[in-house]
C-alpha cells in the first residue's frame, strides 16, 4: 500500500521535473537569458507566472532551463560514476587478491574525503563549467559505487551458480559478465536512484557557492544564491528554485524508497 503511494507521488514529481527539463530544451515561455530592465522584480502575474528577477528575466523560464541543466548534469554524472564504479567493484570483488587490496586501499582513501569536498577539489582543477561539474561529481562518487558493488559481488561469487559456471569451464571474464553482473543490477539500481538525488543536491550546493555552472546560465543553485539580496522584497525569487530542488529530491527519495522496498521486501512488511 505504502509502496504504491510512494511510487505514485515520487513518479508524478519526477515526471514533472523531467517534463519541464525536456520542454525547456525546445521551448520556454520567455528566453531565460533575456534581460528586460523595465520589468525588474515583478511579482508573479498572468504574464510572468513566477515573477521576474533583478534583471527582469522570467523566473519560470529560468527554473525550467535550470531543470534541464540539473537533470543533464545529474544523469551524466550518475552514468559516469555507476559505469566506472561497477567496473572497479566487479573486477576487485570477483578477482580478489592483490588487485583488490591495492585498488580498495586507494578507494578507501578517496572515501576519506566527503564527496562534495572531493568534487570541490576536482572542480578547482577542471574549472567551473557543466562538464567540469560532471567530471568532478562523477569522480567523487565512483568510490562509493565501487564499495557497494564490491560488497554485492563478494556475496554473489560464493553462490553455487558461479561455481557451476567455473566448473563447466567458463572463463573468469565470461562468468563475471554473464553471471555476476546481472545479479548485481538490483542494488546498483537502488544506488543509482539515490545517487541522482545526491548529485542534484551537490550540484545545487556547488552552484549556490558559485563553484558550479557559472551565471548567467540559470541553475537552481545559482538562482537561489542570486535571490539572497531580494529575500524580503521579492520572496518568489528564492521560493521558486528552492521548492524545485526540494520537490525533486522528495520525488527521487520516494522513488528510491519504493524501489528498495520492492527489491528488498523484508523492510516493507513487518
Amino acid at each position: 500500500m505504502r509502496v504504491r503511494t510512494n511510487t505514485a507521488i515520487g513518479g508524478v514529481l519526477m515526471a514533472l521535473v523531467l517534463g519541464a527539463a525536456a520542454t525547456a530544451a525546445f521551448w520556454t515561455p520567455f528566453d531565460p537569458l533575456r534581460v528586460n530592465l523595465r520589468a525588474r522584480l515583478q511579482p508573479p502575474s498572468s504574464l510572468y507566472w513566477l515573477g521576474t528577477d533583478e534583471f527582469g528575466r522570467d523566473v519560470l523560464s529560468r527554473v525550467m532551463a535550470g531543470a534541464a541543466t540539473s537533470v543533464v548534469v545529474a544523469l551524466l554524472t550518475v552514468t559516469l560514476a555507476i559505469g566506472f564504479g561497477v567496473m572497479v567493484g566487479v573486477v576487485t570483488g570477483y578477482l580478489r587478491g592483490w588487485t583488490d587490496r591495492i585498488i580498495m586501499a586507494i578507494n578507501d582513501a578517496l572515501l576519506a574525503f566527503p564527496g562534495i569536498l572531493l568534487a570541490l577539489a576536482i572542480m578547482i582543477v577542471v574549472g567551473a563549467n557543466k562538464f567540469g561539474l560532471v567530471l568532478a561529481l562523477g569522480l567523487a562518487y565512483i568510490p562509493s559505487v565501487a564499495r557497494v558493488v564490491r560488497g554485492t559481488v563478494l556475496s554473489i561469487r560464493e553462490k553455487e551458480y558461479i561455481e557451476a559456471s567455473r566448473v563447466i569451464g567458463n572463463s573468469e571474464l565470461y562468468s563475471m559478465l554473464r553471471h555476476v553482473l546481472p545479479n548485481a543490477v538490483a542494488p546498483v539500481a537502488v544506488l543509482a536512484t539515490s545517487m541522482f538525488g545526491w548529485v542534484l543536491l551537490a550540484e545545487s550546493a556547488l552552484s549556490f557557492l558559485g563553484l558550479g555552472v557559472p551565471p548567467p546560465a540559470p541553475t537552481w543553485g545559482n538562482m537561489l544564491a542570486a535571490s539572497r539580496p531580494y529575500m524580503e522584497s521579492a520572496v518568489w525569487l528564492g521560493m521558486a528554485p528552492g521548492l524545485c530542488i526540494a520537490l525533486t529530491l522528495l520525488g527521487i527519495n520516494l522513488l528510491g524508497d519504493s524501489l528498495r522496498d520492492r527489491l528488498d521486501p523484508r523492510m516493507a512488511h513487518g
Partner: protein
Amino acid sequence: MLGYLARRLAMTVPTLLLVAIGVFTLVRLIPGDPVQVMLGDAADPAQIAQMRAQLGLDQPIPLQFVHWLARLLTGDFGHSITDNLAVLPLILERFQVSAVIVLVAVGLAACVAVPAGLIAAWRQNSALDLAVVGSATLLLSIPSFWLGLLLLLLFGLKLKWLPVIGYVPFSENFWQAMVFMLLPIATLTMIEIGVLTRMARAASIEVLRLEYVTHARAKGVPEWLVLGRHVLPNAFAPTWTLIGLVLGHLLGGIAVIETVFTLPGLGRLLVDSIFARDYPVVQGCLLFTAVIYVVVNLIVDLCYPLFDPRVTVA
C-alpha cells in the same frame, strides 16, 4: 579487544598517507604556475627562478612530497599567499566555528532521531510510523541552504527575533555567540534528523524481528523495557556508524551553511581561498578536513565495541 583497537589504528596510517598523496597531487594538477600567481605577471625570470628555489619547487616531485610531508608532521602547513598568515592556526581558528555547529547539530539530531526511529519501527506501518517516515523524508529532501534561507527570512526578517548577519566568537561573549549560532544549528539539526531517523528506524526494524526480542516478550518483560533494554542498544550500533559518516559529510558541506549565515568557518575559508587562488590554504583545508574525517571515523569505530561487543571478536 586490544587486538581490534590496534588493527583499527594501524589501518588509518596508509589511509592518511594516501590522503596526503591525493591532496599533494591535486594541488599540483591545478593549471597555472603557483610562483607566477604569487609574484604576479610583472615578475622577471630571475625572480621566478629564485622563488622557485626558495619554495623547493625546482626539486624532483617525489622529493618535494617528502619535504612537504615532513613539514606537515611538524605542524607547518605553509603560509597563505594573500596575507602571509600561517595556514594551520588560521584553519584551527575557523574550525572552531564549524565544529561547534556540526557537533551540536548532530548531537541534537541524534537525541530526537534515535527515539523517533525506534517508536516508528515499534509500530511499523501504523499512522504514527507513516507520520515519522513522512516527516523524515520531507526533511531529508529540503536542501540545507534553502531551509537556512527560509529560517533566516522567518526569524530574522519577518519576526525580527534573531540577527540576520554577524558573528561573535565564543571566547568573547558566550550568549551573544549562541544567538548567532542558533539558526545554523537549527537548520543542520532538522536536516540531520531526517537522515538519522530513517537509519534508526531501519535498524530497529531489523532488531525487533530477532528471537531475543520475542523471548524477552514471552518471559513477560514489560514492553518499555524490551524496547529500552534490548532493542535500543542493538539498534543504536549501526546508527552510531552513520553518525560518524554524517559528521564528516557535514564538515564537507558546511560551506553552504556558513555562506547562508555569513559565519567565518572552515568551509567558508576553503571556498574563499579557492576564489582567491590561495593554494596553500586550499591544500591545508582539504587536508585538514580529510584528516578530521578519518579521525572522526576512527573514534566512531573505536567506540563501536561499547555498543556492540561482537565486533572485537572478528
